[in-house]
């Protein structure tokens, strides 16, 4: 008699948790930049980046401002590469053994636009915010 409620509620709780996990994954809301090349060995705190909110607030309408494709030294106007990570193309080409090129790609892209628009973070501490 005493065990019954537990037996009944276990599948319910399991189901609820499953729903929760699925909605979290299904949303796929990007809230910080997490390039896999740095995963597990980040030196600085992660950079908060609310993908949709950022691009709306910054009035960026073309995906390929960031997710671009280049050919023959020119950026293609209509092509996009949002299914790829930046590090898939901007991998380390230096002998230093540290992916400076990927960092440069992110920094040039993010900071470059912020400086140009005179809006958005530009100092290390403004992007790599300590939690």
């Amino acid at each position, binding site marked *: 008699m005493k065990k019954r409620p537990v037996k009944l509620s276990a599948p319910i709780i399991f189901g609820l948790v499953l729903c929760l996990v699925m909605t979290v994954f299904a949303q796929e809301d990007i809230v910080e930049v997490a390039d896999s090349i740095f995963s597990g060995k980040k030196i600085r705190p992660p950079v908060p980046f609310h993908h949709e909110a950022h691009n709306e607030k910054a009035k960026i309408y073309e995906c390929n401002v960031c997710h671009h494709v280049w050919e023959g030294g020119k950026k293609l106007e209509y092509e996009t590469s949002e299914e790829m990570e930046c590090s898939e193309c901007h991998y380390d080409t230096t002998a230093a053994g*540290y992916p400076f090129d990927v*960092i440069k790609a992110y920094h040039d892209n993010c*900071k470059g636009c912020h*400086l140009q628009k005179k*809006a958005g973070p*530009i*100092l*290390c*501490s403004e992007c790599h915010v300590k939690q």
Partner: protein
Amino acid sequence: MHEIYKFVSGPLVWLAFIIFVGGSLYRLISMAILAKKKDGLVYEYFSLKYAFRSIYHWLIPFCSRNSQQHPWLTLVTFAFHVSLIFTPLFLLAHIILIKESWDISWWFLPEGMADFLTIVVIAGCVFLGIRRIVRPEVRYLTNTSDFIILALVGLPFITGFWSFHQWPGSTFMGILHIFSGEVLLVMIPFTRLSHMIFFPFTRGYIGSEFGAVRNVKDW
């Protein structure tokens, strides 16, 4: 904010380096000309061998008698100078910014290590400042400018440390960090900090005189 950042991280950097390099060359050349006038023989007896022998003995801690007589001061000044030169040259954040500007990069210190070396520099400034107050024989040779110079050296490290740890006001501290570094560079040729550029020559001069002329050690 963006305008100030662009200014201190762009034109001011160039200006600071041009004054630093140009000023150093100017000081060295005018010193060489003065030496020729006052003691032309220097050029006759200047000996690379004795110059380097002397520089070596004064550069390595506990190699000179003077440094053996003051072990604590030797330890602090050695740690202070090594950290002072090493940290900015091999700091990850500096190399990242240089990578962004010129697409070149090199080996960098782990950030925990850089943090520790920064504390060594700040503590060194405090130690040297207090020493100027409490040691009568040093106090006698001290004036306000010596404390200002110590503050100038300490400021880029304090502000860098501050913004790295993201304490309140770290954006302002970040800008002040860049600016104070530029001020320091500009001041090197024109203050007592010029021992940085003159050291090899003054030491080499004394080393040559003691080694080649008097045939004795100068350490």
